[in-house]
């Protein structure tokens, strides 16, 4: 633990401190802009960090990572355009809050939940990284399959819309995930011979289209109506009462996010989805999710930021990146001549604590930016729609193009926007579609990989304890509500009256 004090030295070095601040501000900015992600920003900065000392270099990159994950929530809440994939679930309830005139409240909750999630995961990182890291090895393809099944088990109830429509939407998402060259067979599916489609539909343009573009189209149908002006309450920050309501959600999501973050290759997006699911499952107002519940903002935001610290666990302790962005940071560590792995903790405790402190500071700084800026940012929701949405459209196009610098992204975004518009008019919610898309590829690939490993004998799934546990949880998740309903029905009069009232 001697490094704990030694790591504090970074606060006495103005260069490091300046770089952390710079990284945090830049991270919030790129995170908030749809189409720009912190992973891309880190990759672009990587060659230049070679000229820095190891500690300032890594401090800059990890600060950017933390702040970028938070930044995505700002645009998700204000204009329904998640700035980065991990913020997709934040838009489910964050944007409806902004529409109701509670943008400031939503932004405040997002900032506080993000910082809590991030700091929680960092504490776990520093206390238990070497032990927790080995969890990564416990997760082979069968365990991933069970985890994604668990995530998908919430599909039917993810939004307040009808269960049937949610399932259809989820199936559509899973279907879209099948586009491209299949990982395990190498067969092209629905690519129409276009090499651009070999890697599948890119997530970011699709996300921007389904959320922001479809929202724009919906707004455009309302121009002839007299719009209710959003009240100035929009700039109000969350109250103490609000935090009393969400602290359990924050805590739960922090644990989920850290756990999912530790799993290699699973990043904040899956963490946020599961965080949202569980927030809904345990909430007293579960049925109101999707209409602007603060727990629906706190759930995914705490989870996706907790995933940043979680993702650093295998990255530092095993040399295995816990997320796509962590993979880039790993490249940065290696470029500095540091080989992450079990020995890093013994040989370089100072470096480890320096990373811990820089991420901690980044979390505190973005909390400041988030809370301080919430009053300012929330005014965006007061901008008349005739001015706001054309600007959003420009942002959408640039973002969709920027991901791979190709017009295909823009076409995907436009098509997804039209599809999203049509579906929403017919009472579908985008949430299950996104969920199906995020988990679809994983559920299919992990099943195919498992079956090769098991020599096509699926019964071997049940010899793995983690799989059995996750399968059981999924079954409970699916059947608990109907069974409880059934029991209530058979119970006495007052109980059934209550359930109708709900």
């Amino acid at each position, binding site marked *: 633990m001697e490094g704990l004090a030694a790591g504090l030295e970074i606060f006495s070095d103005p260069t490091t401190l300046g770089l952390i601040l710079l990284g945090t501000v830049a991270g919030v900015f790129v995170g908030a802009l749809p189409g720009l992600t912190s*992973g*891309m920003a*880190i*990759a*672009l900065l*990587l*060659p230049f960090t*070679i*000229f820095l000392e190891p500690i300032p270099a890594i401090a800059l990159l990890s600060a950017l990572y933390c702040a970028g994950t938070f930044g995505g929530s700002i645009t998700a809440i204000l204009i329904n355009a998640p700035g980065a994939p991990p913020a997709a679930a934040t838009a489910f309830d964050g944007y409806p809050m902004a529409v109701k005139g509670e943008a400031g409240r939503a932004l405040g909750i997002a900032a506080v939940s993000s910082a809590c999630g991030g700091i929680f995961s960092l504490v776990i990182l520093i206390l238990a990284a070497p032990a927790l890291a080995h969890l*990564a*090895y*416990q*997760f*082979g*393809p*069968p365990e991933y399959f069970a985890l994604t099944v668990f995530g998908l088990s919430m599909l039917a109830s993810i939004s307040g819309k009808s269960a049937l429509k949610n399932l259809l939407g989820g199936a559509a998402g899973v279907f879209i995930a099948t586009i491209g*060259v299949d*990982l*395990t*067979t*190498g067969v092209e599916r629905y690519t129409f011979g276009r*090499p*651009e*489609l*070999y*890697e599948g539909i890119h997530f970011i343009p699709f996300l921007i289209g389904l959320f922001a573009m479809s929202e724009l189209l919906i707004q455009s149908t309302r121009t002839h109506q007299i719009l209710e002006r959003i009240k100035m309450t929009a700039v109000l920050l969350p109250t103490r009462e609000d935090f009393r309501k969400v602290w359990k959600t924050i805590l739960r999501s922090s644990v989920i996010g850290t756990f999912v973050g530790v799993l*290699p*290759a699973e990043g904040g997006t899956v963490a946020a989805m599961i965080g949202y699911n569980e927030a809904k499952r345990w909430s007293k107002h579960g049925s109101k999710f999707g209409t602007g519940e603060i727990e629906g903002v706190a759930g995914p935001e705490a989870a996706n930021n907790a995933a940043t610290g979680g993702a650093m666990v*295998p990255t530092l302790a*095993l*040399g*295995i*990146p816990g997320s*796509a962005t962590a*993979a*880039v940071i790993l*490249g940065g560590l*290696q*470029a*500095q*001549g540091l*080989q992450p*792995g*079990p*020995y890093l903790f013994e040989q370089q405790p100072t470096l480890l604590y320096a990373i811990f402190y820089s991420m901690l500071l980044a979390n505190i700084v973005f909390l400041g930016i988030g809370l301080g800026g919430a009053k300012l940012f929330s005014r965006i929701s007061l901008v008349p729609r005739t001015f706001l949405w054309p600007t959003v459209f420009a942002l959408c196009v640039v973002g969709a193009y920027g991901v*791979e*610098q*190709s017009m295909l992204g823009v076409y995907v975004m436009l098509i997804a926007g039209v599809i999203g518009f049509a579906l929403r008019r017919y009472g579908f919610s985008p949430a299950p579609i996104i969920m199906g898309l995020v988990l679809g590829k994983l559920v299919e*690939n992990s099943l195919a*990989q498992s079956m*090769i*490993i098991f*020599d096509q004998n699926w019964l071997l799934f049940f010899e793995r304890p983690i799989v059995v546990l996750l399968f059981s949880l999924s079954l409970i998740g699916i059947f608990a509500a109907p069974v409880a309903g059934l029991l209530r029905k058979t119970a006495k009069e007052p109980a059934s009256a209550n359930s109708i009232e709900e």
Partner: protein
Amino acid sequence: MLFSKGVSRLHTMAARAYCAAAVALLATVGFAEPAEDFPSKPIEVVIHTSPGGGTDTTARTMLIGMRSALSPNIVVTPKVGGGGLVALNYAGRRARDGHTLLAITPTHLFAIARGQGSLRIDDLVGVARATDDPLIIVVNAKSEMRTLEDLIQRGKRSPVKWGTAQIGGVDHIAAAIFGKRAGTRIAVVPFGSGGEIVTNLMGQNIEAAGLNLTEALDRIQRGDFRALAVMSEKRLDSLPDVPTTVEKGIPVVYSTVRGYVVLKGTPQDRIDALEAAILQGMKNPAFQSFLSRSGLSMQGIAGSDVWNRQIKQMYEDARAAMQELGMLR
């Protein structure tokens, strides 16, 4: 003010590049004809992976030195998709005037060998090679397989679960050819990335894998993985005790080679200027330390002659391997 300063800087750069090109030409032809300014616009380095991958990092660290040697105006353009096909097709649409460099790996050659995309092998002109990262057959240190012979015997009983990145990629072809030539059975489990292969080999969800030296060296040295053989002709300096597949009598030689090409039709003086600038970029401390830190040898760096011959050779090998595996239509 700022603008004019930038322009004049550009001019000096261009002049310097022109001098380099002229010197190179003088050396070969005897005297040079005055060529027009090169580069006259931004040079694009087209890569096939997203930011952060090995090809991207290689290019960006090389560019640090190349920019000061040729022009500050050199950018990385990612064209992701289709196992390099999107990048190949994109480069094929650009003018063949030296302003488009394409980063290639064996993956691109496999795609061309399958007849996919708009380019043929003769369209590629090698400019310089950057890295040569051999494949190593590894198993978990806890595994019962201690030698390559053990692995071959094990596969005769039931297929060895062998992790690969992608179907049709270099490590997949290498595994398939190895299985065929060694007379053993291999069940390929694709994971999409080297990192996931490492995790699953650590967790013993798979039994073996062909990993790049850069991915495996550290774990071999730490005793997590056991290296059974290097897929090369000569033993590696960093792993002197590990036999090669060739010396074990199984001629399977594969490595992830990264280098830069332009398309046929690009003026020779520009190719020479690019070659000189890239080689200069790879002499830069930033690139040198990148190599040594990733455990790669400086011998990966080579000029146009060597690289060009290797591209043709790798292509022929790729065709032969795919023919052998029945992957060519």
